[in-house]
């Protein structure tokens, strides 16, 4: 799965997520990526979020919308919200999970419990950050 979240100079947020699914998946299986609120969500008043990992787990937790709700209603930053969503009902929602997010103030977040999520970000004119592995 690949995805992007962005904040433009007008203060607008957007998200896109795209996936080739999982190896050997059942024909017609749908994961979290195309499901709004599951693996993808954006709203200007809070944040934009894209997810990757075990699609069924992310779907059951509605985790992209969870991040949005934590930013909007609990006042968390994007990073804080992603970390909280990562551990949401951990006993029931076991699996690989990864999030990228940007909130309306331009705070960026990269949070995951897995090594499947390569990532990169760039804020304004600052130097870009690129990581293949989680620990970089």
């Amino acid at each position: 799965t690949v995805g992007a979240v962005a904040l433009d100079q007008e203060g607008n947020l957007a998200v896109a997520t795209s996936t080739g699914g999982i190896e050997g998946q059942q024909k017609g299986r749908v994961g979290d990526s195309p499901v709004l609120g599951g693996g993808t969500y954006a709203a200007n008043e809070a944040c934009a979020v894209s997810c990757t990992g075990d699609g069924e787990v992310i779907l059951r937790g509605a985790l992209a919308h969870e991040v949005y709700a934590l930013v909007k209603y609990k006042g968390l930053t994007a990073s804080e919200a992603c970390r909280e969503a990562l551990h949401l009902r951990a006993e029931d929602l076991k699996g690989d999970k990864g999030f990228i997010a940007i909130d309306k103030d331009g705070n960026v977040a990269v949070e995951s419990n897995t090594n499947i999520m390569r990532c990169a970000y760039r804020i304004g004119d600052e130097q870009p950050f690129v990581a293949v592995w989680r620990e970089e």
Partner: protein
Amino acid sequence: MKTYAIVIHGGAVTMDPSKLSPEEEAAQRHGLQESLQAGWEILHRGGSALDAVEAAVQSLENNEHFNAGRGSSLNMQGEVQMDAAIMDGRTLNAGAVNSVRYVKNPVSLARMVMEKSEHVYIAGDGATEFALQHGLTMEAVHYFETEKARKEWLEIIQEEEKQPQEHD
């Protein structure tokens, strides 16, 4: 100048660093840089977040080292089957597609659904026909399939065959 920023993620299936060759790791790193640059340039010039995320994801879809578009995983039948979504935080407009084949950039099809249809979500053959109606670039099956994906698929199929049958 006001704050602008972009974050991308690119799944590449391999989780164990020891199973990724230095060449493959370098190719993935380069692919991330290219995608980031594609989106960042749009934002830097004052373009929209929506255009930026589409461009960044298109770049990853076109890169065989990531699991989307070219380089997608194969389903049980050995077929590519792609899903995508896009959402505009300004309007809450959104578009999504699933189980799409042949469409070079599913993210652009999702955007087309958002902007050119009355719907939010179109699946399967309907999504493919919608792509054809709106002139999106299509590719033959072999464009999407990589040697790596085919090898991983074969390993899964062989493993499945070893398992005792649990179903009627």
